[in-house]
């Protein structure tokens, strides 16, 4: 494809540009013939396996994240005699909520106590539930854990990109302006090509006219000559209202295409296009720890907190888990089977009696570096002064990534903002900072967008998951090679040891992966137990 000549001599590939449009609408799909939009990931299973006849066979479950809780709940209901060991003094694993008094000390870090007011919280781990994650929603329904909408895309939020150039770089710009203008210019350009006959070979009878109709509507182009001169959806300079003043208000003019392109802001437009980012998105009312709490309400008292696994050994007849409890007492649990949901990053450091091949596979995946900070704000200035209700403000500083406004407590007195969400090397960088420096870094970034930001903050809680004991990472990051070489090994039991968790799914980093992995693994376990009964 030819490059578009830009003022100043810069050349810009049209394909680069069009690829940024995925999130705007179906435009890119038509333009580039992209099937890539289909890469979002739906979950495959809608309900747990139907199991019965466990007949008192003993199962020890390690870990109380959603994979462990799912395993324990379903196996108990199927008649197994289940014991659950949890290293921490709470259940939930990464399905976690930080609120007033929550304590966390990262490895090599300072002691931290969450200083939010009563009733306010941040979800430092998973925070949003895609509609396609039917396993999660199955248990939310079953345990009557209420959910509310999570606003994953806000047209009126800002983009604050500093690394581009031109008048739209280095200042907050409303996303709706960038979306409308980008879509307008792209459709205008394409309409021009189509009308000149450049794409005639692409069309069958009657296609061309329909496609032009589509482009005109898609880009809000002028009726007769297909020009983009602005769109209502980009927001007016003066809002329409009553009477004559403001009366009809004053429409706004589009930004120049070159300014949009060079600001790089258009890169944000694709961000919520993948299937697992689409509307409808949910969050549990009251915090992510509510689903684990729902499991606990419905499980017999079989969970032993503060039990750290030291060793897993096996004989032909049984599996034995050695632990040390919070008082330093050592003990063992012997069972017919073990379902181990300990993250591989942690499991690789535990003494395991498994085959060399299995042991090697456990170390065959790396874990995501990722972190978050919750910032409690004295007022909801983003709502009151900026008319932004939930959604994300985008930054091209990778240590910030996004600032996300809460989808709960609307119009209330206070709120907790997600102040950064860095990944990879940027998360490593964040985690090297002291708690105070992390907060200061987050506040300085937010201040560039909201003048009220730093002065409004009266509480914070930050986390770097790769430094959290018993997690040692955000989620499993399989490479193609690891998927081929190690993943299949870990899906099969080693002796009487079954692994489960998000790391054994293609929904890594999602609770749904943990739940559906548990369903698969306990179904395998049950089939074997029944065969041996």
């Amino acid at each position, binding site marked *: 494809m030819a490059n578009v000549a830009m003022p100043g001599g810069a050349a810009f590939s049209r394909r680069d540009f069009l690829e940024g449009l995925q999130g705007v609408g179906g435009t890119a799909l038509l333009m580039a013939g992209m099937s890539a939009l289909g890469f979002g990931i739906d979950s495959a299973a809608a309900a747990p396996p139907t199991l019965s006849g466990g007949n008192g066979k003993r199962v020890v479950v390690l870990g109380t994240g959603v994979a462990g809780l799912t395993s324990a709940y379903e196996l108990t209901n199927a008649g197994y005699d289940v014991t659950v060991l949890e290293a921490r003094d709470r259940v939930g694993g990464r399905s976690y909520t930080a609120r007033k008094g929550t304590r966390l000390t990262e490895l090599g870090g300072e002691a931290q106590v969450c200083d939010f007011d009563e009733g306010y919280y941040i979800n430092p781990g998973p925070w949003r539930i895609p509609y396609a994650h039917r396993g999660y929603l199955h248990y939310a329904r079953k345990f009557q854990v209420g959910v509310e909408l999570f606003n994953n895309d806000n047209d009126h939020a800002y983009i604050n990109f500093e690394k581009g150039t031109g008048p739209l770089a280095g200042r907050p710009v409303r996303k709706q302006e960038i979306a409308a203008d980008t879509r307008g210019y792209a459709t205008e350009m394409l309409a021009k090509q189509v009308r000149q006959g450049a794409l005639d070979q692409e069309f069958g009878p009657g296609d061309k006219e329909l496609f032009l109709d589509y482009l005109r509507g898609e880009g809000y182009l002028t009726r007769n000559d297909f020009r983009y001169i602005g769109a209502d959806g980009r927001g007016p300079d003066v809002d329409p209202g009553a009477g004559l003043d403001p009366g009809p208000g004053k429409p706004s003019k589009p930004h120049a295409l070159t300014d949009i392109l060079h600001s790089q802001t258009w890169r944000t437009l694709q961000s919520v296009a993948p299937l697992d980012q689409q509307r409808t998105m949910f969050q549990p009312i009251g915090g992510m720890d509510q689903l684990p709490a729902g499991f606990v309400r419905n499980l017999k008292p079989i969970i032993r907190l503060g039990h750290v696994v030291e060793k897993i050994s096996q004989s032909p007849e049984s599996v034995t888990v050695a632990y040390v409890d919070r008082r330093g007492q050592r003990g063992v649990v012997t069972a017919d089977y073990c379902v181990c949901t300990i993250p591989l990053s942690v499991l690789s*450091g535990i003494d395991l009696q498994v085959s060399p091949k299995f042991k090697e596979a456990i170390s065959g995946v790396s874990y995501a570096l990722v972190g978050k900070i919750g910032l409690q704000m004295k007022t909801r200035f983003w709502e009151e002064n900026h008319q932004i209700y939930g959604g994300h403000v985008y930054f091209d500083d990778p240590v910030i990534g996004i600032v996300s406004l809460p989808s709960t407590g609307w119009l209330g007195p206070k709120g907790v903002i997600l102040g950064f969400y860095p990944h*990879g090397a940027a998360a490593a960088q964040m985690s090297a900072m002291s708690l105070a420096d992390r907060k200061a870094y987050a506040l300085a970034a937010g201040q560039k967008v909201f003048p009220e930001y730093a002065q409004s903050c009266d509480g914070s809680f930050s986390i770097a998951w790769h430094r959290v004991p018993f997690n040692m990472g955000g989620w499993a990051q399989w490479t193609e090679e690891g998927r081929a070489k190690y993943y299949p090994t870990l899906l099969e039991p080693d002796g009487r040891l079954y692994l489960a968790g998000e790391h054994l799914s293609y929904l890594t980093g999602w609770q749904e992966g943990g739940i559906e992995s548990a369903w698969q693994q306990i179904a395998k376990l049950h089939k074997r137990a029944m065969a041996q009964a």
Partner: protein
Amino acid sequence: MRARTVAGAAVAAGALLVAPCALAQASGAALFSKYCAACHQAQGQGIKGAFPALAGDALVQGDQKTAASVLLHGRGGMPNFSEDLSDADIASVLTYVRSAFGNHAPPISVAAVAAARGGASAAQDDQSALPGH
């Protein structure tokens, strides 16, 4: 992010022509405290049972390609930095780690990192502003 990393690498590579050891040390030390120290600790002593010590470690001081592979591909709980750090950055930080904390191993070249990466040396441009979870 990419642009900055690449620019930093270019500076480091240029500097090597002038005073190889001292400047590689400075750049490597800065990269270490920025990206590595949070887990492996400031003196490379690690945290027992969680993050391996780099001081005195055989793998760190061993084969160049193996050492580079750990940063490029991850290992156990260790993440991979292949998309975040350039080959020059990886060479620089590894060279530092191999000579700091009482370690005594020769520098690692950019070419050795590129070889360990297996051809595709350019970091991919991250198009997505919103992380996937």
